[in-house]
């Protein structure tokens, strides 16, 4: 394969953080994925019920693209970004950057990443990959979810970069232009922790943050009226597991990854309180994981009566209580 041979491909939990960590590490700026996620105040919750989605859903991290923007701001690093109206010009620009030996991050529709099996692929415009080279008609792709470096045909990459729809990628590309070696993490960490806590507690929208968890618990009880049949209901309930565990969250809806951030932050700040908070969010993560397992089990068994759904709803409501206590405490640490 014709690509930048110095590039080290690794799997990461999440595509946006993974792409960013890979680009930074390969540029010589050593940082962990958990640190990227935490410094960007990526932890979040939102319950979404709009016609953009085929069924109500929820998110467990900040808006796609925010991790990159927040990290760049917090660390004062310059990321060169591009968007294109003209697809041909956008493909040419990519080729030019690759010819210069650059590794380039790109936003794509996950549906067209045909190195994954069909059953895994859904239309999702906010998947991030690194493009590390080109060989004939194929681009060489480093995808955080894939164990190996993969190839993607140029016509598919073009479709994926100009997919249109909600949060359309518009050919988005980026790479690190200027790094900042003089970062004082001791100053930054308290600010990023406060921001994360504010996002979970104080945003004035009923479907966001801790309020979003409560909304999810309530609305779950109405899902049975929105499904086609029992198999559809089973599928949507099992998707709770997918959204918490399988869609690049590092497990438990990013709560484990945030625990890893607080642990690292505790060491940097020499803070036993942060260390304790990391253990608490790890426990909260375990409870989310129990919800995932429970949802998968009742979904597969078609055990989806009113009582069982009420039980699941109650488990989720308790998570709202736990996260409210946790983020209120976290907000007061600094």
């Amino acid at each position, binding site marked *: 394969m014709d690509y930048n041979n110095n590039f080290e491909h690794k799997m990461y939990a999440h595509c946006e953080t993974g792409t960013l960590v890979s680009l930074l590490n390969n540029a010589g700026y050593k940082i962990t994925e958990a640190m990227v996620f935490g410094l960007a105040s990526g932890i979040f919750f939102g319950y979404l019920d709009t016609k953009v989605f085929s069924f109500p859903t929820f998110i467990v991290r900040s808006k796609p693209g925010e991790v990159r923007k927040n990290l760049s701001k917090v660390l004062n690093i310059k990321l060169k970004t591009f968007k294109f109206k003209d697809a041909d010009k956008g493909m040419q620009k990519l080729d030019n950057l690759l010819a210069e030996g650059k590794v380039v991050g790109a936003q794509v529709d996950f549906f067209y990443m045909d190195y994954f*099996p069909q059953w895994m692929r859904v239309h999702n415009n906010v998947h991030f990959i690194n493009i590390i080279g080109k060989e004939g008609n194929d681009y060489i792709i480093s995808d955080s979810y894939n164990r190996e470096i993969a190839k993607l045909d140029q016509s598919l990459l073009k479709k994926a970069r100009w997919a249109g729809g909600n949060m359309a990628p518009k050919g988005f590309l980026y790479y690190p232009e200027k790094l900042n070696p003089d970062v004082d993490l001791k100053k930054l960490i308290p600010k990023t922790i406060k921001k994360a806590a504010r996002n979970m507690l104080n945003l004035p929208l009923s479907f966001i943050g801790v309020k979003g968890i409560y909304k999810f618990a309530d609305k779950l009880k109405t899902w049975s009226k929105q499904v086609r049949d029992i198999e559809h209901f*089973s599928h949507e309930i099992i998707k709770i597991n997918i959204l918490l565990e399988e869609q690049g969250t590092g497990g438990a809806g990013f709560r484990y990854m945030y625990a890893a951030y607080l642990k690292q932050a505790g060491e940097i700040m020499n803070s036993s309180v942060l260390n304790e908070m990391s253990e608490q969010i790890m426990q909260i993560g375990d409870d989310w994981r129990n919800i995932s397992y429970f949802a998968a089990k009742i979904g597969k068994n078609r055990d989806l009566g009113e009582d069982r759904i009420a039980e699941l709803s109650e488990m989720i409501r308790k998570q709202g209580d736990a996260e409210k206590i946790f983020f209120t405490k976290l907000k007061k640490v600094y």
Partner: protein
Amino acid sequence: MKEKDIYVDFDAHKLVFYVEKEDNSYGPIISGSYLSANYLDDHWMKRKNLEEQLRNQVIANEISPIFYYMTFFEMGPKDLAIRANMSMRKLTKTFKPEGFNKLRVAQLKLFADIFNIPVSNLFQTFLIKDDDQEKIEMKQAATDNELYHITIINLK
């Protein structure tokens, strides 16, 4: 979650999880997907049933192939409308055979691109009987003519 409690042996679908390691540090490990290891059979069955259900509705002229693929690929109507450069009202009309029949070829091509299928698949389905799945393979190859695909059926 302790490291030892998270490992799942499933090679076809690996994921990165953050865990509490044996030395009490927190960090990433690679494990098989719990869901894929334990629930894929159920997923396949539901997909197959949904596909058949939708196909029968197309055959009975109750829904259009646009509605078929949108439902099958779990796309929201608003997302599909933006991708297809259509208003929601106009898109909704294409969910029924009467609306679908009025679409121009260029619009059909746009929908086919969104679903990543040949245009011709909006008018036909290829089915390989369950018993023959292991003997026959089928590939649909694009050609320089963007409206024309070649379907190659081979004995394995």
